[in-house]
């Protein structure tokens, strides 16, 4: 079953098409990678799905329901959560409170205060931040701030999780840990779409990959297919020319 479906999704910024005529689907339980060079429109597509932006024209459906034009908080309560490319934590709130915001407001039905706190504590344990749960979020390392964003997004009890460059700026150890975390989230039955430049991670954890370039979808397939695709290689490495001719 398609959990998410986009039909000819388009977004113009002035005269520039950031995303143009992109149709896509995400299946329940998949981990899908969204890749492409800088400026390809990956984050814009995330913004369109999470309703930070509204596609024009184009339709986005979540679990068979048209969600185009809904407010971000509604999208979140329906079951789509996201993290941000540049971390958007609540810097002066304690780590636990950061997650509690998601636990309180993200689910369709708001839990009691004690339940929200318990859920938040469990999630901090899940991402490995329970030791720092009382520190202000601004004191965390970048890797931990990204983990906090994941915990916060998961507190909203999503069925679909959008991870925007979770591994950018992390070192090798941290990347390995982040990959492990993605797999653990998938094992909880949450569908994942991830934007990533770390190819090792993409190839390793994704079931399927969608490639964007200049706002258009240029390829789609299993990691193997994408790695062997001529168009994708051309986009990333430039067109091969015969030397000397």
């Amino acid at each position, binding site marked *: 079953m398609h959990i998410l479906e986009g039909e000819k999704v388009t977004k113009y910024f002035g005269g520039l098409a950031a995303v143009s005529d992109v149709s896509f689907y995400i299946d329940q339980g998949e981990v899908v990678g969204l890749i492409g060079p800088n400026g390809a429109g990956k984050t814009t597509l995330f913004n369109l799905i999470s309703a930070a932006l509204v596609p024009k024209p184009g339709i986005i459906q979540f679990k068979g329901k048209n969600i185009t034009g809904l*407010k971000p908080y509604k999208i*979140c309560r329906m079951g789509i959560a996201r993290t941000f490319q540049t971390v958007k934590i609540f810097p002066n709130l304690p780590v636990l*409170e950061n997650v509690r*915001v*998601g636990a309180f407001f993200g*689910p369709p039905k708001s839990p009691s205060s004690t339940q929200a706190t318990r859920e938040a504590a469990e999630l901090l344990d899940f991402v490995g931040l329970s030791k720092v749960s009382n520190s202000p979020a601004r004191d965390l390392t970048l890797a931990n701030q990204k983990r906090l964003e994941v915990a916060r997004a998961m507190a909203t009890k999503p069925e679909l999780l959008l991870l925007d460059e979770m591994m950018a700026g992390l070192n090798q150890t941290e990347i390995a840990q982040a990959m492990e975390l993605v797999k653990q989230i998938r094992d909880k039955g949450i569908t994942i779409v991830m934007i990533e430049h770390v190819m090792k991670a993409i190839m390793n954890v994704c079931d399927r990959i969608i490639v964007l370039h200049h706002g258009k979808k240029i390829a789609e397939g299993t990691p193997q297919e994408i790695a062997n695709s001529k168009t994708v290689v051309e986009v990333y490495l430039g067109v091969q020319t015969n030397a000397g001719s």
Partner: protein
Amino acid sequence: MNSVKVISKKSFLPGLLFVILILLATLPLYGSSYNVVLLTGILMYIIITVSWTIFSGTTGYISLAPAAFFGVGIYTMAILGHILPMLAVVIIGGLISFILALLVGALTLRLRGIYFAIFTFGLVVLIKELLLFWEIVVTRTRGRFVVLESNNTIYYVILSIFVVSLITAYLIRNSKFGLALQSIGENEEAAAHLGVNVTWVKVITFAISAIFMGAAGAIMATKWTYIDPYVAFNPLFSFLPVLMAIFGGMGQLYGPVIGAAIFAYLEELLLTRFPYYYMLVFGIILVVVILYLPQGLVGVVQKLRRRISGEERAHT
């Protein structure tokens, strides 16, 4: 021993607040009428500052609209005070301010930063000019007389509004609603994507904070006997709450309270003792506070407390 300490500390604060409330409530019995009037003024400033902080302190949207809501309350009393009982008019003053804030909030709360501040200040000027136009062109009277109330009555009404506003601020601060407000102040976009209905939370809080300003305006009007748009919509009532909140510090609920209390008392003191240098001294104190106490008085208290508790730990 530790648990005894915790318990005594826990019952200490409510006990202290209760004693203060009793002292305040019985003031007219033992205090001079000068003290009653002085305290009325101080409580008025605390109400406006605390209710300003409910919205602007947490979300970071700097509203310069307090004078508008305060003035709406004043005019409500001036117009309805002759027809309806005083208490009813105070409540109506609060409600009209609430509705005005709902409308204005729905229109303007998409503006951020300086644009929001300027727009809300524009509201003060707009209402003042509209009333001036109305009085000059339509009714052809300038200003209005307001029904009189005794100093003690005014004091008790102001005290009640003060208590209700503090309780409201406390409840909002310690609820999930307060958490939503904080998250908006920290990062509004992230809050929206975590399921917080940011527009609704902002508009409703803005409107709730306006209730107390309107109600305070309505009762204070009875003290001034004669009002006109210049008196009712005095821009100082927009700027003073901001200064008082910064002076006290917004990190804790008691910050704006002591900020407004000290500030208002200082103003009175300087005004009576040094009428010629009053503004000069006042200005210097303000500059010094903002330069050297960026967290306000709350910051000083917390720093001291940390130093004391730190020393205690070093000794054990």
